[in-house]
């Protein structure tokens, strides 16, 4: 199998590799390929960076004003006694 064909074949498994979902045999095969193929290593690296960037781009918490309006809409806050 030519290197390019091997890249093409393994490309479809690279996300499963990222997610730790490959069986041991396929994982070993892909890692052996990655050790030799700079293009595939770069692809994997760029995919990981992409996911990491998107994770950093989203808010961890609900904005306080959104939370306050949600609680009001759902009548979740106890009546203000004071």
């Amino acid at each position, binding site marked *: 199998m030519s290197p390019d064909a091997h890249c093409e074949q393994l490309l*479809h498994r*690279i*996300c*499963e590799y990222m*997610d730790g*979902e490959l069986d041991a045999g396929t994982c070993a095969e892909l890692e052996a390929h990655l050790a030799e193929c*700079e*293009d595939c*290593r*770069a*692809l994997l*690296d*760029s*995919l990981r*960076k*992409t*996911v*990491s*960037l*998107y*994770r*950093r*781009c*989203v*808010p*961890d*918490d*609900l904005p306080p004003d*959104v*939370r306050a*309006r*949600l*609680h009001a*809409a*759902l009548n*979740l806050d106890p009546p203000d006694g004071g």
Partner: protein
Amino acid sequence: MPDEAALLEKLRKGDAAAYRELVDAYSPRVYRLALGMLGDPAEAEDVLQETFLSVYRNIGGFRGDSGLGTWIYRIAANASLMRLRRHRDTASLDEPMDGGAEPKIAPSGGVSLGDPEEAALSAEVRQVMTQAISALPEALRIVFLMRDVEDMPAAEVAEALGLSVAAVKSRLHRARMFLRDRLQPYLVAGEGMT
């Protein structure tokens, strides 16, 4: 949730404190999902409120076949997709549409994100990322948001969206490649990067 069965029992009895606990536990994730899908904070807030109103109204009929979180995500996903369909009448969970016109933002050349964990996200990069995810076909976008942003297991995403696990994996792969291609100018490219 630490003890979902106990929480569910309280919810079915109309326990207000349990409902508040549920809302506080899941509302950030529901909001992120809706914001990612719709790209509009006001609309995401509407979906957030619709979702928990629906949860409140329908908790009595929730049989527990899926996890509570999966059920809530399904409601939020459907509410988001319904809004998108009303806007454009093109979204479908079953048949991903090709992306429309792609956003064009020329990289400034001054932004390098070789180490995303270290780099501060510039407004430019945030804009590129927001536009890229908006350009992602909706059926792929929701899988990406659930799987990669909310870190849901593939099986749970599949259950929430009524898809096979294989379909989730396929869509996730396409979503990551799509986003990576659009973010590529902002990543430090290794030699021979394809």
